């Protein structure tokens, strides 16, 4: 088999959903669940982070601060377990694009402040990551990962996959026994 066709085969299998897709799904799920869960304990702090971005009206920031971490945590868990994967990945994709856009707007405004990424501040870890073009790129990379997961047909090591396989196995039994 030539190298080129092997690469194509690898790409196709990743798009269809292989172990790599599953690893990306689980890694991103963990990331989302963790960063959501870290923001949950301190909505006030997260509201301040949102206010720093100066995009969502101040009156709505507290609501976003309460809803977004819960959504992130739920999406993360769904992706991790592998249930309703496509819907969860699509929402996560939208969130990542929104975060990326928020950061991009503030980079364009020429502002520089702690991005509040992953809610790490709440456990006392402070990388001092300030908003920058690199963070936009990183968010887009995450978004690409979610897009890949959303596009995949099959999710190895997921609840959906196990349920579907069990169902198919039982179908065969009913037919041939």
């Amino acid at each position, binding site marked *: 088999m030539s190298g080129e066709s092997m690469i194509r085969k690898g790409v196709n299998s990743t798009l269809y959903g292989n172990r790599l897709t599953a690893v990306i799904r689980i890694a991103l799920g963990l990331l989302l669940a963790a960063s959501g869960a870290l923001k*949950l*304990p*301190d*909505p*006030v702090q997260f*509201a*301040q982070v949102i*206010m*720093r971005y*100066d995009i969502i009206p*101040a*009156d709505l*920031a*507290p*609501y976003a601060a*309460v*809803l*977004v*971490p*819960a*959504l992130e*945590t*739920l*999406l993360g868990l*769904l992706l991790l377990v592998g249930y*309703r994967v*496509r*819907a*969860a990945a*699509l*929402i996560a994709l939208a969130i990542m694009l929104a975060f990326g856009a928020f950061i991009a707007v503030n980079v364009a405004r*020429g502002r*520089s*402040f702690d991005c509040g990424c992953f809610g790490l501040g709440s456990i006392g870890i402070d990388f001092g990551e300030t908003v920058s073009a690199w963070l936009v790129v990183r968010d887009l990379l995450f978004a690409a990962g979610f897009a890949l997961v959303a596009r995949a047909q099959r999710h190895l090591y997921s609840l959906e996959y196990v349920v579907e396989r069990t169902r198919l196995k039982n179908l065969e039994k009913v037919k041939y026994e």
Partner: protein
Amino acid sequence: MRLLKDIAVILVAAAAAGLAINLFHPRGFVPVSRQELALKRVVPVSAAEAKIKYDAGMALFIDAREKAEYDDGHIAGAGSVPASAPPAGAIAAAMARPLELVVYCDGAACGAAEKLARAIIGRGYGRTVYVIRDGFPAWEERGYPVERKEK
């Protein structure tokens, strides 16, 4: 179609979970008064972070200490607005400048910078006011530009 339904279910479930968590959360705060959050727009920064703003020329530095302390040495280019008795018009003048405001006093415990920052926000300043956490001593210690009044 099922996909849309899944998305809707996830969004509603997350919203319900978020509100429910908030309801039982000791520090939950929806609905919150805007005033309370507005007061939190005072953001502490380290001297090093303030220096970045200083070098970029994107900030107006305000010395919140007494005039005598200011004369004794202050961040080069900073204006003096004593928090104890802000001169009429000084706050309005600072707010009108298209720059970020960085307020400082003598350190974390001095309180003057925080007080002045809140006064500025109380006047309807819509952006974040930065306060140098360890104040002027930290700035001076790092050898950042300082100005003294010639005697």
